[in-house]
């Protein structure tokens, strides 16, 4: 295939020979670039990450610590000890789910900024059931708590879905506002009606031990569930009519309407599915890690989901490596602080730089020139 450019060269035309000689080497370089450009989806995030690590190294150096040592500490802590690995996978679990939540939105052209609020509702919903069904057998209380988390997240996201579908309210605005409302209302709930008796800090009582999600060695059960869901969602999007509806609405609304797809239904369903995933993430955090609802314990998980979904370029399976990466960084950051005194916020800088480089098309342009794929906009504009 590659040799067409050399064997099928223009015949012996007058201008032929001199041009041919001059063209050989740039031609080959082009061929390599063409091949690389095909793997743009993988290469751009990797290069972005390397750039981010370099910038992070400079920041660490400024604080008087050897960057190589700092990074080694971070990764060793997160990956090479059993407790570190468990912690990493526990962190990655809600991240996969909130990443998937954002991915589902992106596939129908919606930017769900509200995974954070949906996740909090999932966490408190699961905690409520885990506390109030105390005494019930595990086969009842555990599924009930998980379902409660899923339902709470779905309903909360469904509000934004309905507003978008039937009133045209832009989902970015509604989900940002719903995030604030969720944080406020849930804070109130755990400060008053659901507060642990006799406690001064705002948190719920501990859940019944029967509702706890266990670990299989260093692998949390929740992590396995998250992996399975990533696979399931990838399959749904690729192989089912529901997935086809989602992608059609996301890619061309007018064509979706022509094709007989009911856009308001799809938009609402997608938001509910998105919220259900985020809510499950919150529920697993409550049942598998925290053991109760505690204000601040799930901070930022939903927002990391946005980073993960964009790193994964809206591909459900790619959320797994993306979430693992963020999980490793977040999990290793604690040890890093302990051993070197470097603030864990350096991880936020790494992630922010990576996200910036991935989402703006500049990097792809620098790497691939005009071979860069047209900046596919992942979401609909403000007008639609």
């Amino acid at each position: 295939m590659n040799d067409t450019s050399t064997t099928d060269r223009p015949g012996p035309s007058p201008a032929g020979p001199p041009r041919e000689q001059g063209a050989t080497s740039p031609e080959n370089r082009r061929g390599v670039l063409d091949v690389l450009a095909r793997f743009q989806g993988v290469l751009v995030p990797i290069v972005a990450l390397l750039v981010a690590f370099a910038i992070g190294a400079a920041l660490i150096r400024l604080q008087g610590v050897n960057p190589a040592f700092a990074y080694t500490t971070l990764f060793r802590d997160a990956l090479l000890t059993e407790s570190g690995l468990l912690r990493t996978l526990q962190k990655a679990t809600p991240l996969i789910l909130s990443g998937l939540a954002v991915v589902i939105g992106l596939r129908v052209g919606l930017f769900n900024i509200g995974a954070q609020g949906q996740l909090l509702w999932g966490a408190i919903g699961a905690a409520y059931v885990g506390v109030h069904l105390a005494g019930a057998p595990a086969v009842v209380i555990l599924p009930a708590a998980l379902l409660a988390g899923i339902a709470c997240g779905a309903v909360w996201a469904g509000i934004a879905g309905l507003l978008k579908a039937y009133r045209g309210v832009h989902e970015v605005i509604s989900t940002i506002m719903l995030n604030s409302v969720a944080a406020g209302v849930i804070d109130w709930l755990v400060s008053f009606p659901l507060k642990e008796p006799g406690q001064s800090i705002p948190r719920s009582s501990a859940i019944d031990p029967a509702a706890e999600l266990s670990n299989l060695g260093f692998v949390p059960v929740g992590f396995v569930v998250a992996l399975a869901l990533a696979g399931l969602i990838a399959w749904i999007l690729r192989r089912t009519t529901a997935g086809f509806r989602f992608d059609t609405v996301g890619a061309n609304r007018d064509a979706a309407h022509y094709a007989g797809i009911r856009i308001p239904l799809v938009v609402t369903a997608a938001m509910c599915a998105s919220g259900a995933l985020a809510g499950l993430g919150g529920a697993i955090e409550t049942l598998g890690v925290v053991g109760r609802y505690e204000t601040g314990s799930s901070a930022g998980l939903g927002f990391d989901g946005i980073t993960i979904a964009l790193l994964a370029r809206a591909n459900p399976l790619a959320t797994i490596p993306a979430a693992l990466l963020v999980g490793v960084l977040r999990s290793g950051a604690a040890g890093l602080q302990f051993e070197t005194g470097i603030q864990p916020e350096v991880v936020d800088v790494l992630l922010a730089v990576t996200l910036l480089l991935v989402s703006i098309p500049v990097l792809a342009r620098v790497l691939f020139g005009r071979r860069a794929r047209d900046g596919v906009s992942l979401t609909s504009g403000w007008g639609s």
Partner: protein
Amino acid sequence: MTERLLQLRGVTKHYGPVRANHDISLHVDRGEVVALLGENGAGKSTLVKQIFGLVTPDAGEIVVKGDTRPISGPSDAIARGIGMVHQHFQLVPVMTVTENIVLGHEPISGGRVDLPAARARVQELSDRYGLAVDPDAEIADLPVGTQQRVEILKALSRDVDLLILDEPTAVLTPQETDELLRVMRELAESGTSVVFITHKLREVLAAADRVYVLRGGQQVGEVATADVDEAGLAELMVGRSVVLRVEKDPAAPGEEVLAVEGLHVADDRGLPAVADLSLSVRAGEIVGLAGVEGNGQRELVEAIAGMRRPTGGRIHLRGDGTTQGGASGAVGEVDLTRARPDRARAAGVGHVPEDRERHGLVGSFSIADNLVLNRFTHRLFARRGVRNRAAIDDNATRLREQFDIRSAGIHTRAGALSGGNKQKIVVARELSARPRLLMAAQPTRGVDVGSIEFIHSQVVAARDAGAGVLLVSAELDEVLSLSDRVLVIHDGHIVAEVDPATIDRAEIGRLMAGGRRDAQALADEWGAGGEKQGPAH
């Protein structure tokens, strides 16, 4: 000696295995109109995109006014005096006509865009070239024909020595087309060269001085228009002789398939577009809807297809339910007045939408997915919500072959196809569903002569198999030659029914112009439409 404005030498562009352009050499002199002719996918758009700096050649040289530096991009091309109107619109839908035209070179006063000045400039351009536009209209509200006019004005609003037009007439009405051909000749006489792409041989003969013919990415011929006629051009293009007239037997109409009674439909702005309209289409006949664009055709078709809610009246579909499109329960009479698109389709309505980019296709999907775009839930293509990929691919392989869709394979992105091949996807999908009622809006827009011949024969075959066909086309020739019966629509009403075999063009032009004051002028123009306009040599 004439000045050589543009010289291409050995220009080559491959997309993977596809040889979009291969070793193409040609030239354009100052003050010339040059036409590029070729089948769908022959490489015409690719070639002009390279001249405009949108695509970088793999090999070869593009020399503009003696300057051999490679063209680095569209802004470089514009700086060197090249303007281009694309095959697919590049306008910002939420902005006004004026804003779109001055975008990128806005008149500035006091640090802000001087809108009154911009507006005046647009008005002046519009008057100078006789391309009427409302400077304050929002693009999203305009019909495609008007949008195309805005595109042309936008290109002309910069100083250009070479204007490239990629299928500029595909969406224009015959009068607008004639106006544009006149503008092209005027530009050439005032020293601006024009390169234009078209599939309409009449336009080539009317406006161009010379023609280059491309086939399979290669330049296979160059002729002066003075030395050739339509049949000769067609043969040069396709490599065989082409039947330019539709061959069909007289219709044998059966039962009524579509009954529209007292229909009212509003346009996007909520204004009445179709008012108290009634019509009927019978099985086994092709009913043509002739009318100047924007007289309610689009709204009527969309209402029948279920994409637009009528504000009054009734739409009924009847039939014996023997055609494949008829789902269970669709036998007999179905009320489609308030049906959604999926129900209209299940009842047996097929619809080739007039705007294929917007409604007919999803550019990021594969050809295979686009060929089932509105039938993806059909039991052939999905079971219990799981898509049957083998069946979807088989369908695609068969239709790609049958409709001669030129692409690397069935999994190619539809957006990467040439314009005419995109159109063939839509037509193939709708015809293959064997609808009871086929509505075809501009079914051959942007399609090459060989494929027009094929699509026409397929529409006739659908008719002969018992489908009712409602044909909407801006091509009067197409309406008159393909239809068994012609309805004239004006201002949302059917104003006449005529026999396409006997009606004369002047008469139908008068009817299409309705009660307008300039009816006589229009009628004259239509009457003259059949004659060849002599290019000014």
